[in-house]
């Protein structure tokens, strides 16, 4: 009887140990997948936008407390026009200082004209459209441009400009 109990408890122990090992294996696999996803993401960026031809556009609301963006449109040279419509969650994230990666593409060297149109609403609930154009020059480094919306203290309405990051 004693041996029977001992055998049963050993079987139960090994069964539990098997399950624990399986959980460890599953977690190890997940970790490997996570690392692989990171490397794949990096490779994808290099494939789609090598550093030499890369142009990336970002969007942020820096202290623009009164302005709520609804939609964004960006035209850069001969690249396809980028459109984005904002959800509430995205707007909240932008208000907390997050920076939205709008688009990443490839562009040749030389001067490029960037045209940005932002449709939104000011703090009085009035529709506001912010539009501007700027010319930038593409060199061999990645061209990182940030469309920054800020409150304009003089006119009481928001304004936007382009910042180049290095």
């Amino acid at each position: 009887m004693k041996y029977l109990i001992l055998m049963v408890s050993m079987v139960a122990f090994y069964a539990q140990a098997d399950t624990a090992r399986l959980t460890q294996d599953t977690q190890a696999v997940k970790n490997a997948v996570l690392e692989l996803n990171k490397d794949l993401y990096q490779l994808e960026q290099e494939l789609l936008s090598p550093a030499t031809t890369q142009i990336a556009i970002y969007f942020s609301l820096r202290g623009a407390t009164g302005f709520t963006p609804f939609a964004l449109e960006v035209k850069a040279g001969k690249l396809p026009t980028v459109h984005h419509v904002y959800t509430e969650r995205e707007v909240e994230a932008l208000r907390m200082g997050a920076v939205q990666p709008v688009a990443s593409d490839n562009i040749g060297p030389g001067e490029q004209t960037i045209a940005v149109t932002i449709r939104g609403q000011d703090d009085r609930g009035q529709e506001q459209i912010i539009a501007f154009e700027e010319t930038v020059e593409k060199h061999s480094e990645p061209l990182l441009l940030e469309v920054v919306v800020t409150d304009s203290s003089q006119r009481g309405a928001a304004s936007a400009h382009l910042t180049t990051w290095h």
Partner: protein
Amino acid sequence: MLKPLVIIFALLLSPACFAVEIAWPLLPEQAKVVAPENLATGVFYYHYLNEDYQAAANQLKYLRVSLPAEAQSEVDILEITLLLALGIEQQAQQVFAKLEGNTQASARAWLFMARRWLAHGQWQQADFSADHGLQNADQLSDDEYQELLYTLTLSAVEQERLQRAKNYFERMKETGHWADLARYNLLVAFIESYAAVQTINKLLMEAKLHQSDTPESRALVDRSYLLAGIYMLDNGHNRQAEQYFKQIQQDSPYAAEGLLFYGWSLLEQSNYYAALQPWRVLQQNYADWHPAVIESVVAVPHTMEMMNASTQALRGYELVEERITQMLGNIQALQSDQQLQQWLQHWLEQQQGEWGWRRQHIEVESSAVSQSLLGLMSDTVFRNQLAEYYDLYKIQQQLAKQSQQAELWQQMLAKRQQILAQANGAERLQKLQQQQAKLLAQLDELEQRWQAQELQQFSYTSESQKRLLQRLDSVVASIKLLQQANKPTRNLDAYKERWRRNRGLMLWEMTYNQSAREWSATREFWQLDGILAEMRTQLTHSQLALEWSAFSWQGLQEQVSAMQQRLQSLQARVHEVQQQQQQDLTAQMQQYLAGFKKRLLSYQSQARLATARLYDDALQQQLANALVEQLEAKHD
């Protein structure tokens, strides 16, 4: 018979089964996020706040590089939260172990890490995180602060530090979702530590008093009454138990168990007729396969027997025998590997969402297997394993998709290389550069001619004017010849006068038009120079583009090949683990069904024993009556 069932139900309804919904999104404290130092930080928080945690994980590396040393612990906390959300607990533990000495982070970051640890049942880590979050509680909203206190209460309860749990509970508001949960968990802790009836009663009264008007709050209160009632029943306080079970609402998720135990509490008080009523309601309102219904089916003839209603009891036991035999047959059919694996596959296909926290849990529709596995599905360990199984299934799909993508990338790279080779950029550029050199040489020549004009007396003359000038020159020679050839009497003044006039007119015209012609020539020269300068720029850009074009494929094919190999080996590994997981789950289900079958056999044997006993009693009674009649006849 009652005690094992009580224990089983108590285990089934333990706090670990009561999963808390994790409210998203994670919102780092605003002051730390308002002005991102650089794009990497901002982009990370964008993905993070929009719950795209895989994308956020991809940005972590850039975030670490861009933030200063004093902000690294906040990044560690974010990383731990991401890892836990993706179900990678071991890695999270490793990062957490490094964290303990360095604890500068925002309150919200601590709070949301605490949530994740709590969801994983890691009480010590949850306690540590929540405790640190509490140090800067002024950064939190009221609801978040209550949640923090709840986390501390629960983790203290789970670590069996009741006094600490009580202290934190007393700091909480009396009403609210978090207070309800904390109160419930404290009640469970008191029950497990065999607290006095008065203590439990007091908590229950508070729960009822501060109950919110939400389904979750009402369900929690019902569950509290159920557990307290089972505890009272187990300790012989049947009257008190009855009072508790009566409090459970008819439409509660715990109504079935409530009805079952209500009946038992009445039976224990020898209130047999009353005990039958809740069981009849249970059998009418709930499906046959419900564990509470199965138990009540056996309980009813047992009660009849205690009421000495032997005939009804016998009929009842015969019905139990029939029903259980049928159920045993069903379970026998379900226990095969094939059936269970089919059910698992069906369950997999029913679920939605990506792996990790983004899975949307969907209950499978009712089937013979689902009904039989009802008890197992409420086990947290089994549910977690099922969740992992689903994760592996989605990971396998994701890896297959990424493999296809890698294949497409290889094709794209080959295509790029081919297109660039066909474009013959180098040769064409060289030809263009040669043409450019020729044009520049021509421009230089023009420039020299243009500069030479400045030195001439009669500059910027047209072709006709040049011809006229030449004619004028040649006419001088002719006039001189005439002068020599003819007699001195010949009058050449007219010729000379005409020559002078023509020369004068010509000089006038040339001088008059010279500045305009000079301006026109200069302008055209500079335009030409400008166009050639643009051409030089364009050629430079084309040269750059040619140099850059190599980056679109060079070195990338090897990287993609290496990635493909990694994908293949990971797919094989995932498949292996998936198979093991499937076998393990199947084994657990079979084990559960075997245990269920054993329970049913136990009910069946009890029913048979009772049937035999009743028949035996009836026979004994019959024999006794016959003996009495015989004796009476003898006397007569």
